[in-house]
């Protein structure tokens, strides 16, 4: 569909892919975009491979089918390249944002942007791997602006987490791919 960007997130249940997909959508909504964010659900529990999606477009999004050929694939959990077909359906001009220092051989055929999110998050001491990756994705997409993303994240994650840690994680990732 014209003007629509579709992003697929790969992680394990519990790693915050659903939240990241949603924060991205919220921030983009605030910039006036049409958005949609949703995970895939199954009987699998914490630890199982999970996919989530973000859709963005210049007009309201109406379609309600799943994403089959994403423009961007985000791999939050590197081990998933072995089992989850992360490059499946990737659009010809699409790319993968990968959590790691270098792209694994499984992704040889596609364009990969590496973000050592695990390492960066550890460095920050807060463990927000998903936020680091989210920052990087925004940078790569060219939208939304970092500040909007940070606001959306703090709002979504609520009182239970330290807002500053969230902001830092996002900007760390943003800086990495900007």
């Amino acid at each position: 569909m014209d003007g629509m960007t579709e992003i697929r997130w790969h992680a394990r249940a519990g790693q915050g892919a659903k939240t990241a997909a949603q924060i991205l959508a919220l921030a983009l909504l605030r910039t006036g975009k049409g958005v949609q964010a949703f995970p895939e659900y199954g009987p699998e529990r914490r630890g199982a491979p999970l996919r989530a999606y973000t859709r963005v477009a210049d007009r309201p999004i109406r379609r309600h089918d799943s994403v089959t050929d994403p423009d961007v694939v985000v791999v939050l959990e590197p081990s998933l390249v072995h089992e989850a077909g992360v490059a499946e359906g990737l659009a010809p001009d699409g790319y993968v944002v990968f959590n790691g220092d270098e792209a694994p051989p499984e992704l040889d055929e596609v364009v990969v942007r590496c973000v050592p999110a695990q390492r960066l998050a550890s460095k920050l001491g807060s463990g927000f791997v998903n936020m680091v990756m989210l920052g990087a994705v925004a940078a790569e997409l060219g939208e939304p602006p970092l500040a909007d993303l940070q606001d959306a994240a703090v709002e979504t994650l609520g009182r239970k987490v330290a807002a500053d840690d969230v902001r830092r994680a996002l900007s760390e990732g943003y800086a990495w791919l900007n």
Partner: protein
Amino acid sequence: MAELSTWESLPIAGAVRPSGAPRTKTGGWRTGEKPAVDVSLCVNCLLCWLYCPDSAVTLSGETFTGFDLEYCKGCGICADVCPVAAIEMVPE
């Protein structure tokens, strides 16, 4: 979905026979740690076997032999219940 079966080839009512059924390899669910045993310490109490949620402690007859890492989810319960601390959770 080309690899999945057509409706006419499915077993009636979806009744599955365990023998032929595929099983999901859940070893990938581990998040960084896996169990490792120091067999010299093991007293073969089999508590780890009894407690393991993923039936991933392997036996030979009635003797403890190790872990089936294809299914072990890395919960660490075996290490916790081992009375002689023969099991330790180690990085993958």
